[in-house]
């Protein structure tokens, strides 16, 4: 009776719009930690609205775990809205810096491969080249795999960021259209979390 509808363990891409206030990051990561949800990647940045930040998480788990994590997040006072990208069409990107060891013999080949991936060279050293690659997870993983044989000295990945496709469908309109900073606070105060969609339980909320 208790088996979730979709018990497959996989990565879920989730964005949260949160108030830009002290300790919000701690509050959210502490919730994840306490309840045992595993965050595989996390990126945080400001939005077009002063006072609102956007976080994108990759949470690993089955459908039920992710639903529960999102509902727990939605309860936090600082969280204005949660978007589960798996329910929508979205674009996502990740940026990585990769420092690859080079020799006089390998230099040309490394540069050629990087060009194929549209990787940009951001630093040139006598024994190493540092590339910047932007793309979805698959492209970045493929690039790193290609470079592995030459010797990867260091990498740094930013974690994924994502936006829903279309014209701001995921942002409550009265937040999105709210005016300057002063107007935002009361508008955000009134924002209800979006309706929870189908998942571990039937869609009757």
């Amino acid at each position, binding site marked *: *009776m208790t*088996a979730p509808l979709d018990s497959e363990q996989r990565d879920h891409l989730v964005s949260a719009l949160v108030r830009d206030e002290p300790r919000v990051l701690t509050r959210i990561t502490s919730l994840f930690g306490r309840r045992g949800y595993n965050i595989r990647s996390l990126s945080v940045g400001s939005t077009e609205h002063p006072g609102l930040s956007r976080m994108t998480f990759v949470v690993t788990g089955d459908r039920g775990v992710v639903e529960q994590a999102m509902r727990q997040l939605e309860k936090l006072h600082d969280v204005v809205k949660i978007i589960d990208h798996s329910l929508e069409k979205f674009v996502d990107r990740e940026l990585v810096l990769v420092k690859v060891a080079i020799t006089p013999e390998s230099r040309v080949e490394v540069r050629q491969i990087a060009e194929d991936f549209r990787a940009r060279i951001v630093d040139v050293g006598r024994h190493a080249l540092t590339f910047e690659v932007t793309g979805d997870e698959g492209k970045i993983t493929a690039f790193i795999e290609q470079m592995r044989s030459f010797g990867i000295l260091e990498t740094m990945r930013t974690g994924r960021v994502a936006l829903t496709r279309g014209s701001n469908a995921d942002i409550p309109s009265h937040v999105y259209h709210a005016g300057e900073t002063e107007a935002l606070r009361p508008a955000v105060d009134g924002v209800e979390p979006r309706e929870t969609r189908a998942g571990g339980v039937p869609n009757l909320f």
Partner: protein
Amino acid sequence: MTQTDLTGAKALWATLAGHGITTVFGYPGGAIMPVYDALTFYPEVRHVLARHEQGAIHAAEGWAKATGEIGVCLATSGPGATNLVTGLADAMLDSVPLLAITGNVARHLMGTDAFQEADITGITLPVTKHNYVVREVEELPRVIAEAIRIARSGRPGPVLVDIPKDIQLAAYHGEIAVPHARPEIPTPRPEAIERARELLQTAKKPVIMAGGGSLDAAAEITALARAWDIPVITTLMGLGAFPSSDPLWLGMPGMHGSVAANRAISEADVLLGIGLRFDDRVTGRVSGFAPNAAIIHVDLDAAEIGKIVRTHVPVRGDARAAAALLAEGARKLDLPEWRAQINEWKSRTVEPDHWGAGYAVKAVVDRLRPDDILSSDVGQHQMLAAQLARFERPRRWINSGGLGTMGFGFPAAIGAGMAEPGVTSIVIAGDGGFQMTAQELATLKKYDVRNVKICIINNSYLGMVRQWQELFHEKRYSEVYLGDSNPDFLKLADAYDVPGYRADCAEELPEAIDAWLADPKSALLEIVVPNEHGVFPMVPAGAALSEMIETEPPRAPTPGIERNAAAEEAKQP
């Protein structure tokens, strides 16, 4: 309204008073001194001085649980603030609306490990619904108003506001925030109600389970159950949500639940849960919980639905509205076989008939009048009180359900008694738990509280731990014997001018209870009971509800018991 000559501290009191807060429980200290100083200008707010911050916050919880209104407590920085943590965690798990205000060191000292500095917002992050540090004096009234709204709205909970000392002292020129309108509680969606109703109509073995979130929907739940003729189980937190005198009442479910409640859950084909969170002490082994039932779960908190048990019909929204909607168009289910089965289970209830903790608890709770408030501490006496007390209305039963906080009962009874001075506030405690907050006897003395009646069930043990050691640790009674070092409770009470009574046997009990309840002052009754009684029925941890042990197994004397008996004898003069 704008006021002149305000400081942050005065703005705080003006905001609290403006929100109708009449009583605050607290304890002063260096970093909250400006607030205490400003208090002298606000006689409309009563401050109750506890003897420990934990006593203050549990009293605020007792106030909130009895009235349904927000409890407020106050503490200084550092050690004062950290002493609130237990109460905050307690209020979090039991969804108690609570506002905790703490002082902190001045802003320029924050983060420097200053004297009596603690990062209390960091510490209390997981045990509060929300918390704040006030960083500018202009924010203070707004933050307090918002904290009160958050604590009371939706699923209630504790909110902490930390105020640096320099902000308490700073001049304040703004407005005093007025109360927020209470936010609309979501009404359940009609489709959900319709599906729930369809399920109920086809049920052959239905049962309703009402939890702590249903207390304010007691009238609607009672009407719903009677309209459909469905039996009702009330959880530990939900006792009083349905009148015990109604033949449809089956008692409490779970680890120490009634035979009827646990069997009914195990057999049910439709289970309607209202305002409960399927705590593990209620469900037993989850895979064995209501194995045949389609579950309808009504809860305000979407995160609770599907968290523990698979829900077939989730109904998100207000318990009152949901119960009222489900009662509409009800027709009495004609289920004679289910009724007969339930009556057979109910007949298996054995009331304590020989001297022991259960007998003593029953003698006390039988004296409850419908308006009396019964609080309990945590342990065997709590479970016995929950099993044996009868409640006709909600908010007359106050205990620490989720956190199981020893030391909770007595200060909570003081808070409840101060909230409703016209009713008797009885607390049943154990000899262990009472000593965790016994210093609050001073609060009774200081405020001449006259309606708090303390009953200590003294079995010389941490009884519930002893019971588990007996059942699951081969009777190795490790560090649970208190009898050799307990105080003379009557002398202890006397030291605070609280009258004391004692009963050592069944014969003495009626007279002692009479005298204790008749005493015009708050009074203490110690009932000395044999020390090895267990609480049954019991579902062992990890077992399914259907695997409950209905009655106490016969016991044989053990070396452990003999050793403790010898120890007891040795202390006799």
